[in-house]
């Protein structure tokens, strides 16, 4: 199963303020590899970079390089992003939604309840860490 974890999941799992559910989820995904895999776009790594210490970010990048690959933002088709912008999402959120559709991921995990919550016809499901952990 392919998942995309929003930046807040990594930040709450590895940063200065942590949520147990986010820590447990990341640990479970890593332990269950390759049953569950994650992908992430460059933009999410940049969001993590802004919200953890430089030393922790270095470890995060080392983890990412071992565990998965970073997709360059430019690879995501422009038309996909436009579709979500047309739906009323902010450009950056539209990009994340387009990225998830482009990767074919089944689940977006995010602690941001408002993210994409207005849309029921998305090609992927949205869970927070706690509900995703129960599902896996």
């Amino acid at each position, binding site marked *: 199963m392919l998942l995309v974890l929003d930046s807040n999941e990594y930040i709450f799992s*590895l940063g*200065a303020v*942590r949520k147990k559910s986010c820590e447990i989820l990341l640990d479970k995904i890593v332990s269950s590899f390759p049953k569950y895999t994650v992908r992430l776009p460059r933009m999410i790594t940049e969001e993590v970079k*802004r919200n953890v*210490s430089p030393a922790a970010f270095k470890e995060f990048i080392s983890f990412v390089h*071992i565990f998965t690959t970073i997709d360059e933002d430019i690879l995501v088709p422009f038309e996909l992003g436009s579709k979500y912008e047309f739906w009323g999402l902010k450009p950056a959120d539209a990009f994340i939604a387009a990225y998830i559709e482009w990767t074919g991921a089944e689940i977006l995990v995010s602690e*941001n309840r408002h993210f994409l919550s207005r849309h029921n016809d998305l090609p992927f499901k949205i869970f927070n860490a706690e509900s995703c952990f129960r599902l896996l």
Partner: protein
Amino acid sequence: MIRIAKAKRHIARARELSSRMKSSFPKMKESEIIAKIRRDRELIWGEKFAARP
């Protein structure tokens, strides 16, 4: 197995380092941190793409 062990080591190290660092996050509510991350997303987007022709 080695790959998983290495990944876990980096996760543990990141958590350990984050615990030692000073941050404004402990003073903030969860909703405030999420809002800050969202603002950062928009800023990053602006820096990366908005200035392009």
